[in-house]
């Protein structure tokens, strides 16, 4: 299998802080990968470098055989890598429907052959006119009853869902979800992930998601990358990675108290 996304030797320093120290990883097409690690381990930096928000100090990122290192975020989006945000990034004064319509408008304009060509009448990937495509996303993410509510008034769980639904407007090939269930009540977490995974599987999207909840990781990820101190310390199926001694110690933080003391004395 060839990788759809390949990172090679990515490094990034913020002053004296090392956020990425030579990260290399290939992501296979149509897989679901979980990124775990404590705060500051380098997960979000990794996501930010892939989506063009940060320029790596060294290393390259190749997407479908094409180098995308340090491209502008909007160019990377147009190639088919979309992201959601840990803190939902919505258009708060617009309704849920309008939020999705903004996405449709952008996708339609980007689908033109040239600067002065006509905008297509149906949204690529949906085969529907923009309002119908937006309605389809509303239904898929169970947002129909919030259709005409301003995004700024929505509860956090719904904001999360809308944030993810908005990334689907562009029918991404690779979807990066930054902590899709953070700030969501425990009962809602699995419901949100089920809905997202169903939408994603239906369209053959490759998913990378950053997550702190190990139950979510174990249930949805086919592969786990464990980050610590800007490096990947473990890479493999969830049962292997989550059982790894280093991962348990540095990422999950489950080391027995006296073992921790022993390590400190050593």
């Amino acid at each position, binding site marked *: 299998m060839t990788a759809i996304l390949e990172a090679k030797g990515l490094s990034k320093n913020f002053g004296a802080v090392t956020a990425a120290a030579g990260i290399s990883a290939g992501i296979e097409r149509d897989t679901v990968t979980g990124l775990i690690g404590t705060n500051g381990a380098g997960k979000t930096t990794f996501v930010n470098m892939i989506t063009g928000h940060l320029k790596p100090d060294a290393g390259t990122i190749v997407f479908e055989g094409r180098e995308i290192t340090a491209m502008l975020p909007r160019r990377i989006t147009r190639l088919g890598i979309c992201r959601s945000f840990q803190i939902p990034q919505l258009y708060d*004064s617009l309704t849920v429907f309008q939020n999705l319509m903004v996405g449709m408008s952008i996708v339609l304009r980007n689908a033109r052959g040239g600067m002065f060509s006509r905008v297509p009448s149906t949204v690529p990937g949906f085969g529907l006119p923009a309002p119908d495509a937006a309605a389809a996303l509303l239904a898929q993410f169970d947002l129909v009853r919030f259709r005409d509510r301003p995004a700024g008034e929505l509860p956090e769980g719904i904001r999360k869902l809308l944030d993810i639904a908005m990334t689907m407007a562009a029918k991404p090939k690779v979807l990066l979800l930054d902590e899709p269930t953070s700030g969501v009540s425990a009962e809602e977490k699995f419901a949100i992930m089920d809905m997202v995974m169903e939408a994603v599987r239906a369209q053959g999207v490759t998913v990378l998601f950053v997550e702190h909840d190990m139950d979510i990781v174990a249930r949805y990820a086919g592969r786990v990358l464990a980050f610590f101190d800007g490096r990947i310390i473990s890479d493999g199926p969830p049962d292997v990675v989550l059982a790894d001694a280093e991962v348990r110690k540095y990422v999950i933080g489950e080391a027995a108290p006296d073992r921790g003391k022993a390590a400190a004395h050593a």
Partner: protein
Amino acid sequence: MRDVTIRSLAVALALVLAAGPWLPQWALSLLTISLGKGLVVLGLLLLMRTGLVSFGQGLYYCLGAYAAGVLAQWTGLYDAVAMLVFSAIVSVLVASVLGLLLASYRGIFFAMLSLAFSMILYGLLIKMPAFGSSDGFNVVARTMLGIELAGKGGYAVLALAAVSACAAAMALHRYLGSHLGSLAPAIRDNELRVEYMGASVRGAVHLNYAIAALLAGMGGGVTALSVGHIDPEMAYWTTSGEFVFVAILSGTGSVAAPLAGSILFEWLRSYAYQYSPNTWQMVLGAAMLLIIMFLPAGLWSVLARRNKGA
């Protein structure tokens, strides 16, 4: 035409054109100038919807007026329509260049930088004897589309102003509903998301800035044709401030609001001036205070609320 806004504008235009010949001279020129200034405020509406406030629209108002005057004075092209088209072209050209810089500023920095550019134009004009320095010069159109104009134009200039203003408002309404124009409120709410959805915020801001300049330039051209005289005060910051005042007074709820608000403002000012010549600014100030306290979304929100209730 099923669109209420487009239909209402068409009806209003027909009314103005029909009533025009019976209006007294003072009302005719008041209405023409209101429409000229309304065009500038229309541009501000677009900027405000994009989340930007410009305290320097006087730059394009003045440029448009001088472009019309210079065309007539120096090339002998005295046609009102040609003068107005030239106003628009010059404004757009200047905005395309200045927009390269301004498109990367937001909030108070955008407001102050736009103000600075308008004051540079003011400073240049008062030092240019060729353009009459601080006195300015007279502008007279002799023909409109080749037809000879009697006197200062009067009704013909009002008709030109009304057609331009209504056409501009309709076009802007269409633009705001288009794929590109609908980005404006999204940019106001969350620029980061717009970029991550695959659109260029800078490009959209630059375009909207140029459209606002085009409208302001046309407004300046209309005012020059109506008043018959132009001077550097048109670029002074108080002129720009007045446009912002009217924009807030009108509200940004509909493209018809700036035109209606501008007409109301000019009427209010001329009455205030007539009945309290020394304290007319206080009347306007009090009006502003009341609007901000009781109608924070502008006068238009009264109409919008009533439609919703019905």
